């Protein structure tokens, strides 16, 4: 049996940052396991720019951002295995993994960092009626085909869902010579960043239909067309609003789901709101010594935040290995109230917070000129004015430890309130 202090599952931005930080903080015996043929994760196919403004103060492409971490990891002699699939993780932190070279490996870890990322929601999950022809791709699959494998997926394209990958792909397909006919969004607002709507759709005169969805898929072999329609406030198609498109390709950018089969298998509690594990201030799951960071915990819209969160996980793991992490489990819990769809972390032990407690949250709809009110049980500890809040944009709240220390309360709540 192989033995490591820390096994990091996933060699994307989260796993890389966590491993590097843990090593920096004095953990020597680390193994990073990556299922793909190289490190870097999904960043390797995100060839557009816009990564790294917070972390590096410059705009990098996905591969450039990944490469900086990969180079650092290699220069620090952190061990990693590519083409390696983790089959299961047990509560006692035994990792079962395989690859063609090493065969079946049973690895005993003192601590584990889960950094498996997320996967895309598929057509099956939303049950688009109609036929099931070829030419229906999730946006990320199309991105891989085009950017890494070098193949075009179609010529006339409709995109369902205005998540960032969908918007980015609208521009990529256009630049590569395809005609993107429309981007169709079920919600009254886009799920993507505003800048992406401007530079990926507006720049190329691609129409965005809000409150619309695809109601029929045609073609017995390859996709031949789709019908879209406007939806009412209960998301039901409104008769008479149909628009038919002749197209050979339908891209889906309808959401990302944290990939937590291993997490659940290890017995960690899953938060149904994030679809990720319940974590505490140290990014530790409900299984002691099993930490998690990045999109496996909750879907981020900026990789910079993934990096920051993962560094925190890396530092916590180092503390855990050195027995410096307080395992006092009686802290407080965070709760999203009016307008807040989730908060990470879900549990907090204030003893493990250095100077500031960082909360990440998403709101459930678009708000203008409101405030976020943070309360410890009934007592308001902070109010933050917000000009603009949208579900597509993750909010980052920093609370000074001093605000929360020496207080006896059970729930830290966050809610959206009209500005006075």
């Amino acid at each position, binding site marked *: 049996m192989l033995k490591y202090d820390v096994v990091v599952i996933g060699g994307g931005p989260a796993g890389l940052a966590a491993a590097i930080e843990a090593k920096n903080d004095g953990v020597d015996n680390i193994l990073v396991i990556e299922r793909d043929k190289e490190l870097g994760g999904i960043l390797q196919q995100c060839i557009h*720019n816009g990564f790294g403004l917070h972390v590096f103060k410059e705009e*990098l*492409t996905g*591969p450039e951002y990944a*490469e900086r971490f990969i180079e650092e990891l290699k220069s620090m002699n952190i061990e990693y295995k590519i083409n390696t699939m983790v089959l299961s993780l047990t509560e006692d932190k035994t990792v079962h993994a395989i690859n063609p070279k090493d065969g079946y490996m049973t690895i005993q870890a003192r601590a584990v960092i889960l950094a498996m990322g997320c996967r895309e929601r598929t057509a099956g999950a939303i049950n688009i009626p109609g036929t099931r022809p070829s030419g229906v791709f999730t946006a990320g699959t199309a991105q891989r085909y085009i950017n890494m494998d070098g193949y075009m997926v179609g010529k006339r394209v409709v995109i369902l869902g205005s998540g960032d990958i969908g918007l980015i792909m609208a521009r990529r397909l256009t630049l590569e010579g395809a005609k993107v006919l429309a981007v169709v969004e079920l919600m009254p607002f886009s799920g993507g960043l*505003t*800048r992406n709507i*401007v530079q990926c759709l507006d720049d190329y005169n691609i129409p965005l239909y809000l409150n619309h969805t695809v109601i029929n898929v045609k073609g017995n072999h390859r996709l031949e067309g789709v019908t879209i329609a406007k939806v009412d406030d209960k998301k039901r198609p409104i008769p008479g609003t149909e628009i038919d498109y002749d197209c050979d390709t339908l891209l889906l950018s309808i959401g990302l789901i944290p990939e937590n089969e291993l997490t659940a298998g290890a017995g960690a509690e899953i938060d149904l709101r994030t679809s990720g594990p319940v974590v505490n201030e140290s990014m530790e799951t409900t299984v002691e010594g099993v930490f998690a960071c990045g999109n496996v915990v909750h879907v981020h819209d900026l990789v910079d935040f993934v990096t920051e969160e993962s560094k925190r996980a890396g530092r916590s793991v180092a503390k855990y290995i050195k027995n410096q992490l307080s395992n006092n489990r009686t802290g407080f819990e965070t709760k999203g109230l009016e307008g807040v769809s989730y908060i990470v972390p879900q549990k907090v032990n204030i003893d493990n917070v250095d100077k500031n407690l960082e909360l990440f949250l998403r709101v459930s709809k678009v708000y203008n000129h409101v405030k976020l009110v943070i309360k410890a049980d009934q007592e308001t500890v902070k109010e933050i004015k917000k000009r603009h809040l949208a579900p597509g944009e993750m909010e980052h709240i920093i609370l000074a430890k001093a605000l929360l220390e020496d207080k006896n309360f059970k729930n830290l709540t966050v809610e959206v309130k009209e500005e006075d």
Partner: protein
Amino acid sequence: MDKQELTCISCPIGCHLEVTNTEQGYVIRGNQCKRGETYAISELTSPTRVLTSTIGVKGGFLNRLPVRTNSPIPKDKLFAVMEIINTVIVNAPIKAGDIILKNLLGTGVDLIASRSISE
């Protein structure tokens, strides 16, 4: 007085900008940092974008090499530059930052590799 609304794309925050064209020049509201002002003026006078794409690569571990312009190029030249990009094939090994094409269409902007590819 000419009033226009823009969304700043300098960073992912995406500030909503309100630009007024006055006799003293453009007046910009809504930006959270200085880049918003620069963006608005550039967008209204000569809009530019960073172009990212791929080129063919031989003898490497992948078939495509991601590339980008090392600074923004005029928006109306995007497709013309794409045509040039589409004809380029390089040989591995490549280092991130290697210059692939110099001075694209006389813009002074270079096309650079945005990752390394070993042989």
